[in-house]
Structures are given as C-alpha cells and as structure tokens.
C-alpha cells in the first residue's frame, strides 16, 4: 500500500520535477525543449518501471503509458522558438497532473483533476471554454466534497467536459483550437483519457434514466460533431469536431453497456492519438507557412514533402478507422461488445464514421494533392518532426495489433449497482 502510494507520487512527480528544472533553462529555448523531451522519456520509463507497484486504473494501464508518449511526441513536433517555452513547461505540468489523476487514489486524484481543469482555461481566449472549464472545476470540487448523488452527478459532468459530450464540449474544443504551441496535440490525449478514467468508474452506477439521456446526447453529439466537422474550413476545428463525434460514439457505448470494455480504452486512446497526430501534422504546415495560414492556400505537398505525405496519409487512414490501426480495432471491439444488435443509434454511429472518412480524407487530399504551389518553399519533415509523427503512427499501429486485453482492463467490467428507480448513485 505504501509502495503503491510512493510509486504513484513518483510517477506524477517526475514530470513536475522536470518542469521545475526546465524553468532554470528558460533563457535557452533549445535546451529547455531538450530537457522537456527528456523528462517525458524519463516519465515513460518511470511509469513502465513502477507499473508493478501501481494499482491498475479501471481502464487499464494503457493511458499511463500513452500520456508520456503523447507529451514526448507533441514536444518533438514543435519547432524551437522562444514563444513556445511556456507551452513546453505546461506540457510537463499537465503530464504530471495527468499521471496523478490516473495513478493516485482518493482526494489526491481529484485534486490533480481540478488542477488540470483549472489550469486549462488560463490559456484559451474563449469565454465559452473558460466558462465550461470553470464549471468543470466546480463539478470536480463538488464531487470531492459532496455526497452521492450530487457527487456522482458532478463527477459525470466533469467527465463530460473532459471526454467531450454535447453540450459540454466547448472546453475541449477551446483547448484544441485556441491553446498555443504543443498543448493542443497533448491535451487532445490528456483530456479524453482523464475523462474516461473518471467515467470508467462512474458509468457502472448511473441509473437508466441518466443512461438514456447520455445515449440521446451521444447520438445527437455524434451527428452534430460530424456535421460541424464537415462544415469547417479550419483544420483544428475540423479535427476537434471530428474527435467529438468519435468520442460521442464511446459515450453511446458506455451508456448502452454501463461498463468498460477493453476496447473502450483502446478506442479512446487511438482516437485521441490520431487527433493528436493530425494536429501535429497541421503544426508542421503552420511551422512552415505561418500560424494563420489558410488551409486552402496550401496544396500539392505530396511531391514536395514525401515523408510528410506518407505519415499524414497513414495518420488519416488511422483516424478514419481503417485497419490495422487502433481506431479500427477499438471501434470494432465496441460494436462487437455492444449489447444491442441493431438500432437507429448504430445506424447513426456508422453514418458518423463514414462522414469522418469523408472530411478527414478531403482535408488530407487537399493538402497533399492538387496543384503544387511553386511560390512556396517546401521543406520536408525535420528529424524531430519525423520522429514525432512516426511515434504516433507506431503507437496507433500497436493499439491496433496488440490484443486489447494486454493493454486494457482485461475483461468488460459489468455494472455493479444500478438503481434504476431513484437517483441515489453509489460512488
């Protein structure tokens, strides 16, 4: 028990310590970045090394490993620039807090969650985002202090803010579209994983009426996310709405099964990673052509940037749910373990999935093919960018091919107690 607590604190402490150390390198951006990357690598080593001492989260150890990988990849994909220093340090802070959420138990876990939700709105210039994150903080705080059913309701709300569910998706959108530097690609993994972590424990206790409500919201959210993604011209918004529609599928599944299947973690991890990878790919374009480049102004990169084209294509294939990547295996796993054989909801979910293959491929096709602009300077991926995207692709591939029970919780966790009549949830 003591060993577990120490291991948890160590896991969360390494990145936070790294963040502190990085502050000392503030005047030297290149060294600061190297230090941040090294911290992410050490964190990964630490969680792997300490995993024997840790009690596995409900959704398994997958997220514990994914978070340092995502942090490292997002840091690698970022160019050295003084403007990005704070985002690098914040990445480490969030990594520490994220690992804290996943590995600590009791109030410490909730405190870490509050810290994540609390810090996130400091950055986006979006009142809607700030409002929702503030609600998230309030919910997380209340769940810590209050008794059921209030604590359960507020926990569920904070999960819906992190693992976005309509209409509480604004914070997630703001984090992915408004945050600077490498934070969006990292938070694209951190927020949903933290959300699923909370939800995995909670979903078993929700009463039928809430589950039905979640099902409706999930189906509506999936459709809404897909339609909004189709209508977007800006890449980050399209990816944010796209991932919202995918996460809505998971909400639907969770509400329908009231449990966590191994594939749920794989699905969330893969969708989050694919979103993160696509955000990093877009970051590559922004690094070259400016932060406010119009996506329609860039085309024909396939011939000029072949490495980039290959990796972006693989990421897109992963994101639209083609085998052998994780999104596919996660999605198929969800469908196979879903209790309902056929319903309108499944039809809509499939429609949403098909829509994703349209808008994601359309975006990638526009970037890679079409007329190559000869007046643009084309520089293929630098080594660190290549490593970053490659890392994500390999991780997605691993999620697709490694049996789910090895990385997930093992078996489906059935609903333990559900009070169908009253609103008294057990925590």
């Amino acid at each position, binding site marked *: 028990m003591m060993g577990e607590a120490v291991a948890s604190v160590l896991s969360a402490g390494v990145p936070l310590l790294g963040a502190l150390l990085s502050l000392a390198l503030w005047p030297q951006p290149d060294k600061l970045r190297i230090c941040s990357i090294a911290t992410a690598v050490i964190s990964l080593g630490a969680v792997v090394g300490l995993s024997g001492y840790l009690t596995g989260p409900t959704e398994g150890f997958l997220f514990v490993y994914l978070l340092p990988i995502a942090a490292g990849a997002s840091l690698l994909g970022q*160019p*050295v*620039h003084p403007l990005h220093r704070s985002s690098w340090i914040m990445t480490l802070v969030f990594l520490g807090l994220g690992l804290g959420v996943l590995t600590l138990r009791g109030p410490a876990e909730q405190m870490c969650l509050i810290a994540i939700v609390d810090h996130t709105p400091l950055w986006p210039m979006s009142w809607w985002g700030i409002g929702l994150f503030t609600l998230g903080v309030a919910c997380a705080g209340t769940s810590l202090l209050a008794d059921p059913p209030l604590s359960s309701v507020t926990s569920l709300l904070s999960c819906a803010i992190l693992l976005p569910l309509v209409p509480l998706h604004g914070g997630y959108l703001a984090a992915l579209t408004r945050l600077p530097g490498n934070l969006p690609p990292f938070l694209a993994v951190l927020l949903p994983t933290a959300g699923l972590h909370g939800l995995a424990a909670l979903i078993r206790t929700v009463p039928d009426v809430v589950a039905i409500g979640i099902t409706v919201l999930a189906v509506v959210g999936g459709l809404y996310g897909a339609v909004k993604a189709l209508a977007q*011209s*800006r890449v980050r918004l399209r990816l944010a709405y796209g991932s919202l529609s995918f996460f809505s599928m998971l909400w639907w599944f969770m509400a329908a099964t009231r449990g966590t299947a191994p594939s749920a973690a794989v699905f969330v991890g893969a969708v989050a990673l694919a979103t993160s990878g696509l955000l990093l790919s877009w970051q590559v374009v*922004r*690094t*070259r*052509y*400016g*932060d*406010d*480049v*119009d*996506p*329609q*102004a*860039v085309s024909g990169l396939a011939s000029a940037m072949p490495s980039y084209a290959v990796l972006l294509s693989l990421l897109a294939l992963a994101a639209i749910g083609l085998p052998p990547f994780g999104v596919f295996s996660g999605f198929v796993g969800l469908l196979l373990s879903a209790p309902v054989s056929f319903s309108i909801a499944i039809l809509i979910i499939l429609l949403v999935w098909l829509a994703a293959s349209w808008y994601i491929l359309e975006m990638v096709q526009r970037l890679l093919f079409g007329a190559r*602009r*000869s*007046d*643009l*300077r084309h*520089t293929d991926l*630098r080594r660190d960018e290549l490593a970053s995207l490659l890392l994500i692709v390999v991780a997605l591939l691993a999620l697709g091919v490694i049996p789910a029970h090895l990385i997930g919780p093992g078996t489906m966790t059935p609903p333990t107690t559900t009070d169908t009549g009253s609103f008294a949830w057990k925590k």
Partner: protein
Amino acid sequence: MEEVGRSIDIETRRMELRGVVKVAGEVIAQYWPMRTFVHHNPLHSLEYLPFEEAVRRGKQFMGGDGYLPSHLYRRYLNTGRITSAHLDAALKPLIHDKHLAIGSRTVTHGDLLRACLAEGICTPVVEPLDDQLPDPSNDLIDRLAAKLASVSTCSDLDGRIRSIAEGDQAALGRWLTLSHWCDDTLGTQIVRQINDQLIKWCEAFLDEGHATWPMPGREKGLYGAWKALAVHEWSPCGIEDSIKKISRLPDHPEDALLESLDALGIPAELRQDYLSLQLTALPGWAGFIKWRAEQREYAWQRAYPVGLVKYLAIRLWYARELVQQACRQELGIDGRYDSVTAYIRTHAEEYYLRRQRVAGRLPALYAEEVDRLAHQKNNGWKTVLDRYRAEVVARQEAAARRSAARKLLALARSLEIDAAQLAECSPTDLKRVVDWMEAFPESDHGPVWLKAFEAGYHDRLLGQLQQRRAEAHQPAQTRPYSQSVYCIDVRSEPFRRHLESVGPHETLGFAGFFAAFIRYRAWGKEHDTEQFPVIMRAKHEVREIPRSYLGHKVSKHEARAKWVAAGHTLLHDLKENVVTPYVMVESLGWFYGLPMVGKTLLPSLYRRWTAWLRRIFVPSIATTLTVDKLAPAETAEMLAAEQQATVRKALQERTGLRSSRITPELVEGLRQRALSGQGDPDPPLVKEAERAGLSMERLNAFAETLQRQYDLNARTASRHKERITRTGFTLEEQILTVDTALRMMGLTKNFARLVLFCAHGSTSDNNPYESALDCGACGGNEGSPNARALATMANNQRVRERLTKTGIEIPTDTHFLAGQMDTTTDDIHLFDLEDVPPTHRADVARLQEDLKGAAELTSQERCGRFPEVRQAVKGKRAEAHARRRSTDWSQVRPEWGLSSNTAFLIGRRDLSKGIDMGGRVFLHSYDYREDPNNRLLEVLLTAPQVVAQWINMEHYFSTVDNDVYGSGSKIYHNVVGRLGIMSGPWSDLRLGLARQTVMNGDVPYHEPMRLLTIIEAPRERIEKLIARHEVLRHYYHNEWVHLVALEPEEGVLYRYRPTGQWARIDG
C-alpha cells in the same frame, strides 16, 4: 420585303460569326485521330509570331510553360551539358554595364544575372508571415531585412487594389472569360462544370464505333443532338429551368452562339479572343472537332457533322447560364461583361478581398471573415479591409523584406562573398542588388537557358561535321554491294551507320512515303489508309491484291479469314451485349485467362505461338500491288464484277435463293436493270427470273431494292468508276515518281545490283500510341506499301527506258527491292522476293545477312538507352530484349520512338558518314549538283522539313510541359471513342506525347531544343527559297528553326540569323 431583309441580315450575321470562329480557332492545333497519330506543333497556328512571343501566348491561352523548369536547366549546367561559356553568351544581350562593391568584391550586373540563373535565386517564393522553421541565418536575415527597411518604399495597398482592378478589367474578355472570372472571384467551379458537360457530350457524339450504345440523333449534328437530349436532363450543373431554356434555343447553332454572346454582353471587338479562350479550355476536344470539320469526306463527319460553331454554341450556353446564376446569387448583378466591369470598378476593395481569398492569399482569419461577409452579403468590406491594412500589410512588407534578404544571402553564397560583408553594405547598394534581381524574374530565364542549351548541342554536331569534312577524302567510285534508302526518321540513322559498317553498302535518306502519294487498301481490309504526309493530298489509289497464280487458294484464304472475323465479331457482341456477359463470364471467361497468362509471363513465346496458330489457320498469301493504271476495259470489268457480287449477295439475302439457282445471266440482267433504272425488264431477264421462281412484281421490287438499299444505280456506278480509274499510275506518272524520288535522294548514277527501298513500321502491344511509332511521312502508317509501289515502278522496264532519256541510266542488272524495318525490334522484312531475278539471289542472301548484322548492332545500341537496362546487352540478347519489349503488353516504352530528335541534315551522305549521331538527326540525302534549278530543295524545305519541325515541336512542348502540351502518364490513359485518349475516365482529349515517351523519370530523355536544319547548298539558293516561302520565313526569322548552310565550294558553315544575315561559323 422586310422579311427578306431580315433573313439576309441574319444570314450575314451567321456568316460573320463563322468567320470569327474560324479565326478564333487558330489558337488551337488540329488533333488527328490516334490511329493515324500525326506529330504536330501545338502552337502551329502561332508560328507567324516569334518563338518567345508564341510561347507567351501559349501560356496565356492554355497555361502551358514554354521552357523546362529552371531546376532542370541548372541540372544540365551542373552536369556540364550546358557550359558556362554558352550561358554567358546567351546572357550577353541582357547584361548592363553596371557594377557595385560588396566588401572588397566588385559585383557586376552580369555576375548577378549569372548567379540568378545558376543558383535559382530569383525563384519567386512567398515568405510566410511568421516562419518558425529554425534557420541559422535568421539573425543575418533579420539584420539585412532591417537595412532594407530603411530604403524600401511602403507598398500602397490602395494602389495595389487599383492596379488589380484595372488589370482585370483590361484582361476580361481578352485573357479572362467571365466563367474564369467567377471562379477566381467567387470561388465557383464554372469552368470545371462546363468542361465536364462538354466532355460528356463530345465523348458521346464523336464516338467512332467504340461505344456499345451510340448516342441517338447524331445525324442532327452536335448541336442538334445535344439540344434533343439535353432537354431531358434535369437541371444540369444546377441550372434552373434548363428544360425550358434549352427547348427555347434557336435551331441554328450560329443563332444560339450569337444569343449567348449577346447575353454575356461580349463586345464585338472582343468576341474573337473570347471564343479563342473558350476553345482553349478543352484544346483536345476542340482540336479534334476542328480537324474533323475540315475533313468533309471523312465518313464519320459525313454521317454526324460537327464543327467549332456547334461546339461553341453549346459551351457558351452553359457559360451564360452559370455566370448569370453565380453573379446574381453572389453579387446581385447581371452576369454580363459590362456589369462585371462596373462591379470591379465600383467595388474595388470588395473585389480585391474576394480575389485574395479565392487565391488563398489571406490569413485564415481574414479568409473566414471574407466568407462570412460574402455569405451574409454584408457591407463590412471596408472595415475588414481597414483591419487587414493595419494588421496584415505591414507584416507582408516585413515578410517581403525577409524574402529579399534571403535572396541576398543566396547571392552572397553563390558569389562566394562573406555574408558578414553583405551586412556591412549600404542599404542603397543592397536595394540596388535586390532591384537587379527583381528585374530578371525567373519567368525571363527560359529563353536564356534554351539558347545556352541549344548552343552546346549545335557546337558539338557542327564540330563533328566540320571534322568529318576535314578528314574525308574523295572515295573512288566503286559499285557498292547494295544501296538502301531509308526514311529520314531519326531511328534510321543508327541502322544506316551500322549497315555501312558491316559491309560496303551505301545508304540514303528519303521521306518514307517515297514520293508515292497513295491511298492504300490492304488485302482483306475494308478501310483505306492515306500513305503520305498529312499536309499533302492523295493522288493515286493502290490496292493490295493476291497474285494471279494463286487461284483457289485465295477463296480458301478469304473463307478462313471470314471465319476468324466472324469469331471476333461474335465474341465482341457477346461481351458487349446487355445480358450475355453474365453467362459468358462463367462459360468462356477462363479462356481469356490463357492469353492473360501468356502475355504477362511469356510474352515472346505467346506472340510466336499465336502467330503460328494464325499461319496454320489463315495462311498468308503472296500479294502484289495495283501499281499500273487499269485500261478502260479492265475498269469496266472490275466494276461489273463488284456489282455482280453485290447482286448475288442481295439475291441471297432478300429472296432466299440458293446459290445453285442464281445464274450468271440472272445476275447480269438484274445488274443492267438496276443501272438502267426504268422501263420493262428485258425478256431474257424475265425468263431467267421465272426459272428462278421470281415473279414480275418481285423482280421489279427487287430491282428497286438494289437501287435504293444496295446503292446499285447509275450515279453510284459512275462515282465508283471514277474511283477505280484513280487506281494505279499511268506510265508517265510512274516515270515522274521514280525520277523525282531518285533525283531528290541524289541517286542518279552508280546503281548497285540491289537497291532497297526500306520503309518502317513498329510492333507493340497494348499501346494506343502505336501509330506514333510508325512512319510520320506516311500519315502515321507503316510505309511498306509506298516502298513496294516505288520498287515496282522502278523495276518497270518501260519506266527505265524513259528514265534513260532524262539522264538516269539504271543498269539492267539493278533490281529494286522493297522492305520494311520494324523500329521496335530492328528486324527488316523484304517484300516481293519472288520477283527477284534468279541472278540476284546470292546478292539478296548477302544483303539479308548484313541487314541482320546491322539490326543486331542497332538493337545493342538502343538497349543502352533504355533506363532499366543497366548493363550492356550484346548480340542476340539485345535482339531478344528488343523483341520482348515489343510483345510486352505492360511495357509503357516499347521504344524511344523519335525522342531526342534535334536536327535535320539535308546533304550528301559523305558529310555525315561514320559520325555517331545517336539517332537524333533526320537525314535526307540531297545532292545540290543534281538540282540546278532549286526545285528539289524547295520541296525538301517545304515538305520534309515541315514534318521534321512538327515532330520536333511536338516533342519539345510535350517535354517542357507534359501536363498541358503532352498527354501525361500512360498509366492513366484510357482510349475513348477509338479516336484518342483521356487521362482517367473523364478528361480533355490528351494532346501530344505521353510522359514515358519523352521523360526518363523526372529528367527529360528528349532534350527539348528547336530543330537545327543543316543544308549543303549554296547560300544564295537557300535565300531565294526563303524569300519565296512564307513558312520558311516564319521558321527562320521567328526562330522556330535554326538554319545552318554548308557552303559546298568553300566548305564553310554559315548560320542564318533571324535578321536575314549569314554569320560564318568558325571551326
């Protein structure tokens, strides 16, 4: 009276419009059907302009580049193909006597221009507003940019807006159609939509038997057929009320086109340019329509008439409707020329923002803002522009300065100047350097590169010729083993060189149609081929017929050939039927696996096996050509025989009579009756009919059927007779043909015992471009009929006797042979060997052996040029490799064809004998001493040279911009309508040559240079011809062709300048 006046007025307008369309069509080149691929200059109609200007026009109208990309020229510079000396010489006219000092180094204007070319410094690059890519030079760039800021003038956004608005107003109608304008301003896809529609209709209408279900109503012409069908389409391209609108269109395409032009409000003075722009939107389909409209005798054109007016009438209808719709919906204005120009003038700021947005030049935030304003039709344009001016323009200027600073750094690196010294330069000097660079943009580099590129090749070739001349000694006049005449095609050059090296053979070059302008029909074929350059007309018809001694073998051959044809037809019909394929796949499908496996795994063996099968089933029979003109009696006899065959066939088909009951008397009687047309039938016919069981009524009805449905009437008979009389050559014509040919090739004495006229063809599989590999001088066909015809004429004793009188004495022991070289395999096949006298059999055997040896050496040389052949292949292996390529159905490059052609040499073979010209030179034998009155040279310059120039320009433009002037990659090609190819399932008819024909990977195999014509003749003779022929003036004065004369007496080379002066070339 008023009615008459109006109708005259309408007719006048129509005529006027037809004239405008004809002139407008000059900007597009004709497109010949693929089965007779004709190399041509895609900018042929602009040859009246200087080359550089024509290239500019090509860019404006079709968007094609006229020069290779600079990075490829730089590659040539780095590999030494372009030398520094040649580059300097090409740059010389552009260099100003200016210089400035950077540190201790003096930089001249010439240094800078040279660096711009060699290092690509002037490549236009849009500097991002906030580049975050790490670059160690960033500090220096920032310092230089800061220096430039002190001397740079701030760009005036209002001025830029004004100039864009004014420029676009001026361009509208001239370089910009209203459809393009909408696309560029409103982000619509009107041009693509119209193109898609036109492709659909053209593909269906122009089909020449490819489609299983042909388009109905084609006999009404393109416009009529479109109108009849399109009226059933529901809202094509989203055009509202299309059904009503189409049904209200006038019946005459001219009227519809005028109506559309009026609706679009195109001013009269702009109409020609406007229509040219419309035609260049799909230059392939429009080019084919242009060609077909001029072929009045072409069967498909006669059946389904098409023309550019009809095409434009359809195109402009879509344009007017879509433009109107877009302008109304997006801008609330009429889709007319005047409304659009007024909008540009009065809403310049909004217009600027819209254009920038569509062009992708706005930051994302502003792009969204513009979309929002456009969507909500708000009036906030000024506010957005003000914000843009305040937030973005300054950043753009800073980015432009950074871009200039980058160029300065690149220049310093190129001139090996310390970058730190650059930073110490005065801002004014830096600005001057930047100004010099900007005054020499990359768009101006092409002509300089091309001149330097050409100069390198010219120096080498002319140097080789001069050296050869210096080394050559007058050979003793000995009789060669053989003389063989090859086509001027560049592929003949290596073969000739090798044949000369294996034995004492003499070779000559002559245009592959061998002066025989014949329309030819091969035995058993139903269609004629035109065996002469496309710029000529047919004078004679020649047919291949079985030799007279074959007797019953012919009918056996015919019967078996019919069985084979029937089998093919049956299989085709089964495949194309609606229902049968379902059954056929199950039952016969696996049979198709055999050819597939054979062609894929063992192509050579499969080819040999199928050829063997064919020989077994339908053995080939010996044939000859109808070279002699038929006597009137023979003509009548032939005509009667054909008509009798028709009557016999009709009797069997219509009356069901068995052949045993059809007597010759009955057939002849019916024939006479059908030809005479009226009156009662003759009693003998009535008697024969009764015997066959035909009543009087049936007889009369049958005669009428013969006249109407079998075209057996006096008028058709007369036409047919006239055609038969065109068959063959009179004695006089034969004498003239042989005399002209021999004199033009300079073969008037010292004849060998064997003279071979060697045509050429090619063999490849699964290759729509097959005819591009055949003989261009024979209209994209194999040249064997021409060679056989000329050999037959030259062997005619009466012709020889008469030739003696004109000074050409052909020895009695000289025999003329015809042959054909397969340029893919290098095999030579000799024809009509049974006509060779027994005394010459040994000569033929020796010639065949040497031809085989030469073929082997040629294959060996050619194999070295294939990119995938990495190690030298020799002897039989080279032959086998070449043969394998010709049978491989996956081979996209069976041979290089005419790629790498560069020059045309008109002169005696002694000039070039022994020089390895790498298969790049068209060689035409010519002896100026045989041409005292310049007649032959005149023909050479105005016919073969024109063909060579077309071939050269086709290759040039296909290489420099394969996407626009070429046909792209063969991988995506699809045959359409049996007339051309499209890329993928839906595209313009692809012009020009495939990428694999001219490119080796990303590097050109064909070095794109303008033709260099070298003539061995006195200069004053050439000058006279240039003065006489406009086409020659266009070529030489407008720099489409380089001309060099070898002054025979002096032995000195002279270059003809575009100014009309000669400049001596020192060796």
